[in-house]
């Protein structure tokens, strides 16, 4: 739809016309603010935490484990230099061979969700699966952070 609108504006004499082709879906999925009647619906972005431990793929796991020990999480997320999420290091591998490189022992391609996911729906999904956290990425695969079920339930007033 936006390419047709852009073309129409150009035919009407506008010379500086740009098309944000990824559109509203992309904006929302990056967890950016919006306006409108639905803008106040609680979303994953509202409880997003950026304090999860990250590691680079070539890092020794022992080094990562030390950082995880000082964090509120029992895992680390492996990212590329540009922030793209590559994998997850669970506690079991963090406690195993400290000399192993992250890429050798990480769980590749962990499940992620978008920042605009409604909080009530997300809390229910995590609860039904017994999960305490979820990873949030942008549409381009870059890590935005994590959300905790406890935070969601607090935000929703104790509703699961």
């Amino acid at each position: 739809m936006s390419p047709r609108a852009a073309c129409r504006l150009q035919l009407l004499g506008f010379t500086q016309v740009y098309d944000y082709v990824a559109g509203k879906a992309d904006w929302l999925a990056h967890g950016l603010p919006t306006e409108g009647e639905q803008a106040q619906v609680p979303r994953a972005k509202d409880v997003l935490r950026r304090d999860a431990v990250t590691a680079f793929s070539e890092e020794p796991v022992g080094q990562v484990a030390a950082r995880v020990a000082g964090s509120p999480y029992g895992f680390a997320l492996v990212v590329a230099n540009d922030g793209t999420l590559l994998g997850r290091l669970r506690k079991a591998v963090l406690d195993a061979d400290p000399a192993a490189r992250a890429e050798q022992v990480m769980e590749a391609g962990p499940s992620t969700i978008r920042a605009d996911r409604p909080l009530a729906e997300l809390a229910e999904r995590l609860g039904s699966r017994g999960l305490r956290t979820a990873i949030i990425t942008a549409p381009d695969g870059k890590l935005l952070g994590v959300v905790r079920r406890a935070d969601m339930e607090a935000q929703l007033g104790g509703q699961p």
Partner: protein
Amino acid sequence: MATRIDLGQLRKLLDGGAQLVEVLPAAEYRDEHLPGAINLPLKQLDATSAAQLDQARPVVVYCWDSL
């Protein structure tokens, strides 16, 4: 053909004073839209409705997604 831009380019254009236009129907705009965007639904986009835009400044249009 209009220049296709990504999120990073959009932010730069907005910082520079570009006008942002959602071309989805009014109900969708009322539900949720990007901050500062005005609504010019494609079906109503003509010389009259476009007159509220400043031709001297960049205009960025968007809809839901690229599909």
